């Protein structure tokens, strides 16, 4: 151990705070100059934290919701009755769906319909809710065994069982960060109602995103279905997002179908980048993997 004189040590201890302050200010400036620095550090940290969160989140979830086997044992009879009723209802719907599918197929063959490419997808558990005060995002842990590189994963569409939850903005080897549709920076082109009237859905950091730039001739009607639109080339068309709702005069909002407050599992859809790239997706992870090569 190095022995220092008392006055020198005192001077050193007094200097640490100002020096660290200058360093931090420098980091802010550096972060402004090089926007990728923060993203790289965040992706690295997410990769380290995702396994740790996955390890801690499991037991916590089991305790919290009683989703484990023990919790379910207590209302087996009730759940069975509910499932039987649901099953009967779904069987009816299955018949309807099969009839519609057959009709759809015949109509498509009559129209020489070109099918849209099927996306590659996989399921990832949400391990951490890492939203900030002015940001809404979640962290999912991805298996390293997937044949998908982090660069391909950036821009993937994240859906829960019911609708679009967000989009992958950063991806590492073990984790991916998903910007939710409620985030302030989220801008998604959507189609409204049966005619797909164009509008832009923007996040507000609140629970329900707003609708902007709808055409004056076709104002969004209460209860209209909101689907994603391929305008701009960032999203595939026709994915369910939510329902139009007016909470105030002339301020249409979207009630998201996805349960954004309680996301557990997300499916990440990697759509082939065959669409025109009008909105270039910044592939931050690897500069070598260019989007047009994979398409």
């Amino acid at each position: 151990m190095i022995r220092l004189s008392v006055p020198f040590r005192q001077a050193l201890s007094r200097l640490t705070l100002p020096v660290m302050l200058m360093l931090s200010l420098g980091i802010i400036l550096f972060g402004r100059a090089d926007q990728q620095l923060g993203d790289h550090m965040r992706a690295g940290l997410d990769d380290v934290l995702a396994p740790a969160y996955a390890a801690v989140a499991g037991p916590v979830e089991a305790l919290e919701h009683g989703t484990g086997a023990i919790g379910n044992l207590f209302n087996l009879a009730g759940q069975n009755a509910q499932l039987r009723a649901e099953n009967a209802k779904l069987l009816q719907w299955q018949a309807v769906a099969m009839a519609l599918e057959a009709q759809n197929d015949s109509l498509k063959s009559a129209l020489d319909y070109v099918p849209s490419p099927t996306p590659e997808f996989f399921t990832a558990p949400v391990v951490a809710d890492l939203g900030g005060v002015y940001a809404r995002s979640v962290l999912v842990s991805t298996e390293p065994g997937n044949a998908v590189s982090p660069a391909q994963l950036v821009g993937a569409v994240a859906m829960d069982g019911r609708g679009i939850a967000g989009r992958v903005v950063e991806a590492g080897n073990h984790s991916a960060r998903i910007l939710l549709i409620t985030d302030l920076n989220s801008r998604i082109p959507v189609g409204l109602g049966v005619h797909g009237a164009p509008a832009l859905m923007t996040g507000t950091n609140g629970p329900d995103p707003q609708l902007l730039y709808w055409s004056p001739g076709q104002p969004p009607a209460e209860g209209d279905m909101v689907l994603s639109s391929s305008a701009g080339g960032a999203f595939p068309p026709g994915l369910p997002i939510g329902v139009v709702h007016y909470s105030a005069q002339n301020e249409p909002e979207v009630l998201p179908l996805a349960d954004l407050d309680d996301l557990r599992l997300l499916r990440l859809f990697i759509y082939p980048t065959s669409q025109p790239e009008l909105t270039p997706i910044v592939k931050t992870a690897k500069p070598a993997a260019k989007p047009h090569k994979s398409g």
Partner: protein
Amino acid sequence: MARRSGMRQGPSVWRRLDAASRHAWPVFSTLFGLFLIGLPLGLPGQAELRPAYAMACVFFWSLYRPTSLPAPMVAVCGLLLDLLNLSSLGLWAVLLLLLQGTTLAARRRLAPSGFLLNWAAFTALSTAFSALFWAMQSLLTLTLLTPIPLLVQILCCAGVYPLLAALFIRAHRGAAAAELA
């Protein structure tokens, strides 16, 4: 023989380990708390809780155990907060260091005074720094951010301090008490 000469060699390994763990307690609890707040519990105001927790930790430990929470560790906590909270890199590091500087400057007055005065001081300081964060983040992103999360964060700060203080005062006298080692 070895044992007798050990008396002159200074504290034993276990004792040094004990002292080190007591010194590390504030830093470790701060970092671990920041990690835990990220769990997807779905609590209301969870995002606002993270900076509130960090500010309360920095305030409390700078007040009662400044040597256990040195400035570089405060900067690390701030950077971690920035990375987790998606704010501009380095912003919380600067704010937490400023908070520590202010607390250290007011330490002689605040440390002997009672809990209520400390609580009031922390509420005032955290309000000022939350507002500063809002202003700087607005400036850095060049958009006027909504002030509602700011209010939630201020309420969070005021509410979380008594709970944390109850916990930390125990640690201050037990697990983190460096003079007991």
